[in-house]
């Protein structure tokens, strides 16, 4: 409960949004931003069934991303189901008078890219969306978490949500990371260390010098993957980097209003002596480029490692998991990760599709040819335009990769961008679950630079030698 003692970043944002607390400990929170997408149809149908209206229309923002085609924009969508899903989103937004970044908007993109890019996501706000990767927005010091359809309906009807206060966890990455190491490598190292349920029931705050040194885009990648360690949310305290990122964004306050807001935001970092329920510390200098080998994000290892042996697992459950992962992925114990041949690459998703991600991949691909096919889908239409101004699109296409429009695309395959059964994909996405990128698809998660390296060599590859003599 809120006390007068020193408080963490999370405590301050939480406390500022508690409308009331019940005797049983459930708190009713004000929700500042609710983002919805094509998948939110169940919630709108619940409103319809009750004959209810949206309580605070201005605070609910729609984005077309999960089902949108990444090719042939402008033409009618050929697939009936996909067309209906995109149309349904638009119909719901119009019916309730809600702002929409629709298929044809010049600022359309993936919801977790668009929110920060537009300055809709701000420090100290509560942000929810019917999507587990809503944790992304915590990179700006917001309290952001994914919710289910019934909760989405509740937010639409009341602009509030009942929640139990999670426990607090601090994950510090101290020291500095080496060249070629991305936020993705930090995040996967954390998940490998604590497990996919390691942060369940916890609000995570990322701290330490290696985190402070990350750009906002790096922090967005890091917080995006919080849910892959089971965390309720992930946050980074706002600082000068945060303010520089937000200044001038379309929905961020302007002029004096920005300065007043910034003063409040810079008071959000945790007080000296604020306590966490759990602390984990990693040494940034020990982090290597990481890839996943199995069917859970916790199945992550440095690319220089060999595959685990189920016979040497700590317990029967872990042995079964390793065996199952190797079997699904078509791999064998003891195999070197860098010997694994891949069939295609995907660069995109709410995890790694921002301009810095595209630059990192392009730095590896410039002047080189990909040995395998690949798809690059920028995180938003604005990111796409900027990449084209910088000439990154030509680097990708001259390397032999396809340059597409923005959307969730091959991360989840709802728009038809799928990895074939048995195919192996080097992917900058967030989940290597069975069937995630398509039925029978095999996913290896990695950073954009590592995916580019895999494209160049045709197998999982340590990107660092490929970066020598380059930026």
């Amino acid at each position: 409960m809120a006390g007068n003692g020193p408080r963490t970043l999370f405590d301050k944002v939480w406390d500022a949004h508690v409308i009331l607390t019940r005797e049983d400990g459930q708190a009713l929170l004000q929700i500042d931003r609710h983002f919805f997408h094509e998948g939110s149809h169940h919630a709108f149908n619940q409103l319809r069934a009750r004959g209810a209206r949206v309580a605070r229309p201005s605070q609910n923002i729609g984005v077309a991303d999960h089902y949108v085609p990444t090719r042939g924009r402008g033409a009618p969508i050929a697939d009936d189901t996909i067309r209906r899903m995109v149309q349904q989103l638009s119909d719901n937004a119009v019916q309730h008078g809600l702002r929409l970044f629709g298929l044809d908007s010049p600022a359309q993109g993936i919801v977790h890219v668009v929110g920060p890019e537009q300055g809709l996501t701000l420090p100290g706000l509560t942000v929810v969306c019917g999507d587990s990767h809503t944790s992304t927005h915590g990179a700006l010091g917001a309290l952001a978490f994914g919710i289910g359809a019934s909760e989405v309906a509740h937010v639409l009807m009341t602009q509030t949500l009942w929640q139990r206060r999670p426990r607090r966890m601090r994950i510090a990455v101290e020291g500095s990371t080496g060249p070629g190491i991305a936020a993705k490598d930090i995040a996967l190292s954390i998940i490998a260390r604590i497990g996919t349920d390691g942060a369940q029931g916890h609000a995570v705050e990322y701290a330490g010098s290696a985190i402070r040194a990350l750009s906002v885009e790096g922090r967005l990648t890091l917080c995006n993957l919080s849910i892959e360690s089971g965390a309720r949310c992930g946050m980074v305290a706002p600082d000068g980097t945060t303010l520089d990122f937000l200044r001038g964004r379309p929905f961020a306050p302007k002029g004096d209003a920005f300065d007043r807001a910034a003063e409040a935001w810079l008071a959000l970092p945790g007080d000296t002596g604020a306590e966490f329920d759990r602390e984990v510390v990693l040494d940034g200098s020990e982090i290597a480029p990481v890839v996943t080998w199995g069917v859970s994000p916790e199945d992550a290892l440095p690319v220089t490692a060999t595959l685990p042996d189920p016979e040497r697992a700590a317990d029967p459950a872990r042995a079964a998991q390793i065996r199952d992962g190797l079997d699904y992925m078509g791999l064998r114990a003891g195999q070197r990760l860098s010997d694994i041949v891949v069939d295609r690459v995907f660069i995109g998703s709410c995890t790694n599709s921002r301009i810095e991600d595209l630059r990192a991949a392009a730095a590896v691909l410039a002047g080189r040819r990909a040995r395998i096919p690949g798809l690059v889908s920028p995180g938003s239409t604005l990111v796409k335009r900027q990449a084209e101004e910088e000439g990154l699109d030509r680097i990708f296409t001259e390397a032999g990769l396809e340059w597409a429009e923005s959307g969730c695309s091959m991360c989840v395959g709802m728009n038809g961008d799928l990895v074939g059964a048995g195919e192996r994909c080097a992917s900058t996405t967030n989940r290597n679950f069975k069937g995630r990128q398509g039925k029978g698809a095999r996913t290896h998660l990695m950073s954009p630079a590592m995916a580019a390296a895999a494209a160049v060599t045709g197998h999982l590859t340590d990107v660092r030698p490929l970066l020598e003599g380059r930026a």
Partner: protein
Amino acid sequence: MEPLRVVTATACPLPMSNVDTDQLIPARFMSRPRSAGYGDVLLYDLRFGPDGTPRPDFPLNRPDRAGSAVLVARRNFGSGSSREAAAYALLDHGIRCVLAPSFGDIFSSNAVNNGLLPARMEEEAVEALLAWLEAGNTEVTVDLEARSVAAGGARWDFAIDPVWRTKLLNGWTDLDLTLSHAPAIEAFMEADHARCPWAWLDGPADPTGPR
């Protein structure tokens, strides 16, 4: 929502960790409306082979597990995406309780909001129960009031957030309770408008102009 107090039924062992929501319901089935039902697509790619025929060795397909209302799995059940359809698929297939050492947070909320019990049991208890079921036993009793599971002669406790337990026992949803607090919500948001004007998109901060 249907209240849940005591469930005596066939239980199905699912001796797997990390049964994520992408497995509970693959993304390609999520465009259908709720009214169409989701039971047929529960764990689809595990239950059915590439040609669409049931895999005979998959636990839920075994004849002795027909009509299961309880599912027993290893750690981190329901991790991953926030898709509430994962809970719909379980419920529409007839499952009322999932017993596991740990659950994805969002899945747990979704389950409770739809009348499905996510019961947390000790790892050893789950392993013992899995072994008992895999020995050919079937019937268990899950008692939400007592927070216990009985199987054969054995009995184990489980954990559930007390608020969620109350909701499940009574079949309550949050909305009516929230609406009863409308004046407090209104007053809070009015004050927040003055305190944090940047949080509100209905004023001059809106680049598209006042609505």
